[in-house]
């Protein structure tokens, strides 16, 4: 079955520290991969996406993610976190065999000052 796993439910980092949010997927081929961010009471905003090509993708707000086929992973990173990055982050995949996005359960990021 197709699935997305985000192992970390909640992460706390200090402002200025680096961040890595983990995402693993289960699918027999390479899917399209996305990271979305959701601030409280808001909809989902796309941070970045991977379709093909360069496995290191850059997104908005200084985020990047690296696709690793061997590990079925698509981890999100940011070198220096800002307090405004506190939000919930969702990893998602699209395979085309099912016309929908499959989401992970999300990682809530808390930033301490």
């Amino acid at each position, binding site marked *: 079955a197709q699935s997305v796993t985000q192992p970390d439910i909640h992460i706390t980092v200090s402002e200025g520290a680096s961040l890595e949010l983990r995402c693993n997927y289960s699918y027999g081929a390479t899917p*399209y991969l*996305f990271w*979305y961010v959701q601030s409280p009471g*808001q*909809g*989902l*905003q*796309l941070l970045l*996406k991977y*379709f093909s090509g360069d496995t290191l993708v850059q997104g908005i707000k200084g985020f990047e993610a690296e696709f690793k086929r061997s590990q079925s992973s698509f981890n999100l990173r940011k070198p220096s976190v800002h307090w405004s990055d506190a939000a919930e982050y*969702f990893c*998602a995949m*699209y395979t*085309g065999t*099912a*016309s*929908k*996005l*499959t*989401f*992970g*359960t*999300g990682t809530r990021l808390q930033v301490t000052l």
Partner: protein
Amino acid sequence: GAGVSQSPSNKVTEKGKDVELRCDPISGHTALYWYRQRLGQGLEFLIYFQGNSAPDKSGLPSDRFSAERTGESVSTLTIQRTQQEDSAVYLCASSRSTSPQQYFGPGTRLTVL
């Protein structure tokens, strides 16, 4: 340009009542999706419309849930005889027919008392 819009933003209803949620997709987007997000969880796919094709209803949790879409415009999600477990944020997304990238609306927060 205008993004995906949803109304109402909040809906409080009593158990057993019917509710209708509305979604206005981005102009020119032929694909429209409904997702449900329960508190503290990821997004669950509900239903997918693509142009004039028969909708993919595989995610609807019960026959109390239904959705309609007129052509490539507005969609309404109807929940009949609401139950407390229907309380969630209902998110709508749209995309171009050939793109896996979906654009999300702000959601409707439904509370069933």
